[in-house]
């Protein structure tokens, strides 16, 4: 059975903690281990921050929508902004020697490290959608 939950926030950083609370709560309810739940929360935090800062450029009239798709074996989170999007494959690798000391550029790298799948698509009604999926481990 699939359950869904949707949140919509204004492009304000102070609302990110609210989304984080929901992520932790959903992950715990699904039975993810605490460590996994913390990393899922961080991945979503990074995606929502990117949506607010890069996608919506902090515009107060542009919202960020976060949709949770809860399945028995996996949690997927879709984060939609109203920006033009970006190419996941064209992002510089923050672990390259040339980029190691750069102050930014690690958010999506962390998302990929902590989630099983990270994808990006263009929403049919405009904007960009980042999809984060974490599968439960066999014993969970």
């Amino acid at each position, binding site marked *: 059975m699939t359950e869904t939950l949707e949140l919509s926030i204004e492009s304000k*950083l102070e609302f990110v903690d609210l989304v984080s609370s929901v992520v932790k709560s959903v992950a715990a309810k699904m039975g993810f281990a605490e460590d996994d739940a*913390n990393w899922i929360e*961080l991945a979503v*935090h*990074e995606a929502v*921050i990117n949506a607010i*800062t890069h996608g919506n450029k902090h515009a107060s009239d542009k919202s960020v929508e976060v949709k949770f798709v809860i399945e028995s074996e996996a949690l997927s989170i879709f984060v939609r902004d109203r920006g033009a999007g970006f190419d996941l494959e064209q992002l510089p690798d*923050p*672990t390259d020697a040339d980029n*190691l*000391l*750069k*102050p*930014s*550029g*690690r*958010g999506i*790298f*962390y998302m990929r*490290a902590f989630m099983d799948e990270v994808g990006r698509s263009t929403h049919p009604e405009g904007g960009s959608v980042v999809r984060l999926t974490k599968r439960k481990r066999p014993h969970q």
Partner: protein
Amino acid sequence: MAQLNITTREVGEVTILDLSGKVTIGEGSVQLREAVRQLLDNGKKKILLNLGDVSYVDSSGIGELVSSYSTTNKNGGQLKLLNLTKKIQDLLAITKLLTVFEIHESEDAALTSFK
């Protein structure tokens, strides 16, 4: 309440910043940047960041640690890390930053390393 609290201590020539709370995008990162900047402006160039009570760090917070390190180096100083939580250690390891920072688990050892 501030997201990040920073307390400053001086032991000999070393300034220890005890951080507690969140080092994340916005307020927390800015506070850390300003605290390090202020030390450098005052000629305090041996800086030890105690991260033992930091409950949460995101990619911006990690970026701020990197910036603080680079700024201190450029000003002829040294910035080292003390008491990494498991989470911060993992975040630094994944992005190959464990090799960039000098990291200590004991304050005494960290202080000695500046001499």
